[in-house]
């Protein structure tokens, strides 16, 4: 059957309550940013608590294994370095993901220039997740992660942000520099590819 990707706007009863929850989360982030800018360094701890795990999940899902914490730290340092210019046109988490994604892309570019280091590409998915056997007891999880790792980088980003982080297509589009419709199509193509790989 052909992929049925609806672009219809959900009716009111289908609207995710996440919209309200996100607005509340955004307001809380703004309040913490204001406190930090006013000199309250404890606000930084709260902001790290709210977002660091999501950044680590995104990095790990994108194939970063050994340097996840370093990547999260670089992301946070860079974000806090310009937090006084953040006005909240997008959510703080979306902004953080955008920074982290840029850092990951920069790292991959530099790794390509250093052939002695082995970079994780699409073809390395099986090897990459064979190493996770010891970490993930459930065989089904290993298979699913291998299927996700076999996606194209863009599909993998969109799929991860939608499934693991529950972001909306609009937020995903902001992060990956795409349109909302394109993000939706990438997600459904990724879902189909994962299913096909699991059913092989």
């Amino acid at each position, binding site marked *: 059957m052909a992929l049925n990707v609806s672009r219809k706007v959900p009716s009111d009863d289908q609207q995710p309550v996440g919209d309200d929850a996100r607005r509340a989360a955004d307001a809380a982030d703004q309040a913490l940013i204001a406190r930090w800018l006013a000199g309250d360094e404890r606000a930084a701890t709260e902001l790290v608590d709210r977002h660091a795990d999501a950044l*680590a999940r995104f990095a*790990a899902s994108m194939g970063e294994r050994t340097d996840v914490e370093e990547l999260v730290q670089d992301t946070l340092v860079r974000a806090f370095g310009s937090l006084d210019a953040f006005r909240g046109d997008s959510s703080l988490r979306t902004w953080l993901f955008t920074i982290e994604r840029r850092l990951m892309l920069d790292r991959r570019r530099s790794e390509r220039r250093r052939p002695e280091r082995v970079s994780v590409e699409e073809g390395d998915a099986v090897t990459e997740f064979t190493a996770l056997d010891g970490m993930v007891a459930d065989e089904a999880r290993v298979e699913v992660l291998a299927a996700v790792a076999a996606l194209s980088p863009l599909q993998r980003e969109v799929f991860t942000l939608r499934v693991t982080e529950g972001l909306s297509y609009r937020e995903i589009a902001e992060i990956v520099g795409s349109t909302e419709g394109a993000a939706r199509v990438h997600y459904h193509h990724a879902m189909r590819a994962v299913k096909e790989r699991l059913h092989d």
Partner: protein
Amino acid sequence: MTDCPDGTTRDLLPDFVHGRLGAAATARVTAHLAACASCADEVRLLRTVLSAAMATTPALDRARLVGALPAPPRAGVRPIDAVSGRPATGRAGARPGSASGASAWRWSTWRIAASVATIGIGGLSVVLLQRNGQAPSAIVATPTTVAASPAAPASGPVVAPSVAASPAGGSTTVAAVEAAEAAPLPAGGGMADLADEEVESLLHDIDNFDGVPDANPQPAVAVPRAGGVL
């Protein structure tokens, strides 16, 4: 297994898994899942991906992360754009293309100022060259003449030092070269500045100038002519 044709409901499944649907939407999706094996499978898949992602994410040292953060900025310090790593020009967190009007105005001002400065420097250069007696055209193309005579006027106009060929002997006249080198650099002026004798001499030199190549190419190796003269 085929995908569910209800794309609207399928779009909501990740939000359903994250518990982000309203009561009505949750009830609707739940009812749909009871009747649609494809969507029920997809929800199981989404939950597996989510749990696998949680299980494989390394634990973070929060204290280390917080300790590495910079101190709150001082007022007046220009922030760095976190995404690009360059000094911020617009608003951080703003969407692409939504730069504020103030920054766009500053950019236009800089462009206009750069254009005015370029035009001004160019015009000043021309004026200075003209004051020094050098026509701008002399820099580009100085008429080159064949100095056939050592009597080339020392203060004469547009006579460039050149390898002089004597029409009589065909050899380079050292005195002519030295005289030409001693002369000031070619400056502005024209034929009107030359005396009648100088004009005649110049025309004579031009008439005898042997600068036009032969119709037949010369041999690569000089062949001695009769009399042993090359």
